[in-house]
């Protein structure tokens, strides 16, 4: 049993859990994720480890309520527990002193980005972070990101905070102005795709963290396969981070829609039940 020690709502539909998970907390590194299952009938879903405290034996998960499982998760409270929590999974981010690193985060993608940005900073890099959301209410981890970045740029689609526009606008400007040694981008697939497009002409090594549909997370099912440089990779073990300039983003987006109609027809708590009215 894995107990929820702390719960916070970061923005509308985005929640943070601090979970009791000493074995995972001991081993995990930035870039890795867990797979959880709420109850006996539950789906296995992956969530990134957004932070960890090795001494306290806890990990932090931040998730957006997008469908049945994440919504059911959001209804749990401090003291409740999850049936299964497996990890740490995936390959950790390569952390070295590269020089200047730009961290780009969109929406919920800022959550997995935070421990990576912090590790880059601790390794002696100059970290410029660009985080964006549709509006100011949906921005998360602003203070945390500011604390680990030499410079933090905020964008919102509607201009309610920071610059009006997309995260790629400031990115493009910086790439023209200075030498950048590495870019790490995490967010909606469409955002990662456009970041790749922007950095490609500048020849900057760019990494993205992919979120295909997963089942086991151990390399056993092949459901998480994505085409990278025209070769199939299993995101759960070979990734989730890949060279953005080689990823087939369109293929990834198509595969993410595989169960769209099924999820809509699902009668498990989808927010239409009594407890949601």
């Amino acid at each position, binding site marked *: 049993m894995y107990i929820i020690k702390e719960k916070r709502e970061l923005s509308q539909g985005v929640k943070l859990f601090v979970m009791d998970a000493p074995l995972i907390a001991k081993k995990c590194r930035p870039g890795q994720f867990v797979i959880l*299952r709420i109850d006996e009938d539950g789906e296995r879903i992956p969530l990134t480890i957004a932070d960890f405290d090795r001494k306290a034996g806890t990990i932090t998960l931040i998730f957006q309520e997008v469908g049945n499982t994440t919504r059911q998760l959001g209804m749990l409270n401090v003291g409740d527990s999850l*049936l299964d929590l497996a990890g740490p999974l995936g390959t950790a981010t390569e952390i070295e002193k590269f020089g200047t690193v730009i961290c780009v985060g969109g929406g919920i993608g800022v959550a997995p980005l935070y421990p990576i940005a912090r590790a880059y900073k601790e390794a002696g890099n100059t970290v410029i972070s660009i985080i964006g959301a549709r509006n100011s209410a949906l921005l998360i981890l602003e203070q945390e990101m500011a604390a680990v970045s030499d410079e933090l740029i905020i964008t919102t689609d509607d201009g309610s905070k920071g610059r009006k526009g997309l995260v790629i606008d400031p990115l493009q400007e910086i790439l023209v102005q200075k030498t950048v040694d590495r870019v790490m981008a995490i967010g909606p697939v469409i955002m990662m795709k456009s970041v790749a497009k922007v950095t490609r002409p500048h020849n900057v090594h760019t990494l993205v963290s992919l979120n295909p549909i997963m089942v086991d997370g*151990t390399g056993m099912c092949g459901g998480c396969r994505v085409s990278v440089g025209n070769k199939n990779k299993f995101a759960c073990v070979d990734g989730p981070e890949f060279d953005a300039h080689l990823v*087939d983003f369109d293929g990834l987006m198509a*595969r993410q829609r595989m169960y769209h109609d099924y999820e809509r027809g*699902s009668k498990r708590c989808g927010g239409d039940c009594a407890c949601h009215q």
Partner: protein
Amino acid sequence: MSSVKHPMPEQPAHERRRNFSEVELGYDEATAQAEAARCLQCKTAPCRQGCPVEINIPAFIKHIREGSYLEAIEEIKTKNNLPAVCGRVCPQEDQCEKLCVLAKKGQPVGIGRLERFAADFARNRPPRKTAPPSDEPAGKVAVIGGGPAGLTVAGDLARLGYKVTIFEALHAPGGVLMYGIPEFRLPKDIVRTEIEELKQMGVDIVVNAIIGKTFTIDELLQEEGYDAVFIGTGAGLPHFMDIPGENLNGVYSANEFLTRVNLMKAYRFPQSGTPVHIGRRVAVVGAGNVAMDAARTSLRLGADTVYIVYRRSEEEMPARQEELEHAKEEGVEFRLLTNPVGILGNEQGWVKGLECIRMELGEPDASGRRKPVPVPNSNFILDVDTVIMAIGQGPNPLVQQTTPGLAVDKRGNIIADESGKTSKEGVFAGGDIVTGAATVILAMGAGKKAAASIHEYIQNKRKRDRN
């Protein structure tokens, strides 16, 4: 006396092809006794040579014949911790029954069916209480992977007084027994009960523990105080064909498809949270047991037409005869001497057809089987909306990559000798991770040998340390 095995009753094909209940229903007492009476109680018992876990076959059959079913199961369990599983899925025709003297003139004794009968009979009785060993354990052993190989090692060592912990990556132990072999061939309750008995013997099972990630082998040996480690991680890495269109929606590996249905119970979606996509027309590529399971599962999920697409002919099919027949009876259609060359998709990225080429058999290849060669210009399109790849599995590399000093062959399988010893001290391995995908009973046989050599290794080490 009858020269054929007593048939086992089964659900009629037209009914069972749409439900997930067990196909074969098992012997009743009278049939079991009659079948047991066919056994000649040979002194030399050649059948025993065919059983990798060395069950005393005539002895347990004699008990059944005498109506002492609990004695029968006690006898079996001195050698085999998973009799209800083996009685169902062992390829008996290639193991014990192949060597039965009766097989020379007619059909062998239905050893597997009798084993199943005894196990099922005992299942409905309260389990025998085996108190966990209370005095100082003989040693501490970690088992990686809760499949048949790992479960066997755990059971044997627990019986010898060891403290055994199984580390399993998934949320349930059982390996392929839980996630691969379907409910209608091996009900999951049966697997659970047999594993529960191991727990009662004092075996600890830690689920959600991925070795190579949560712990490494070196940490288990050096920091966690284990005297030895057994690796039984199986052949879980699915192969794809590397043909165009394999990433379209509607293309599954058999592992993913079967895991969604068996482990995650997608056939009960939406009560269970995990969906599975099943189209109207399904092509399963491959012709082993895994392919038959995927095909028969597709029918049960409601597909109208299910094809097995296989590049050789029926003679070369690796599936068990029984599985093949069951699949045919249920209406699976076979497209033999046919090889996929590409998968066609629609604008939304879903499968709309499987392009195939006809094959013919040429010269025998290295394996002695005639090599299939494509017939030029014979391409055609099979009208399907789901494709399931069941063309084999390789070893998952997680443990090997994180264990320095552990030798692997060029396929990535762990190298171990007959007794399960690997190149690394204190580390043993067996089952599919060593042999490549094989069978439940071979994995268990390897587990038995490894348990014996782990016992010897630890006791010798203790002696040396004392001197």
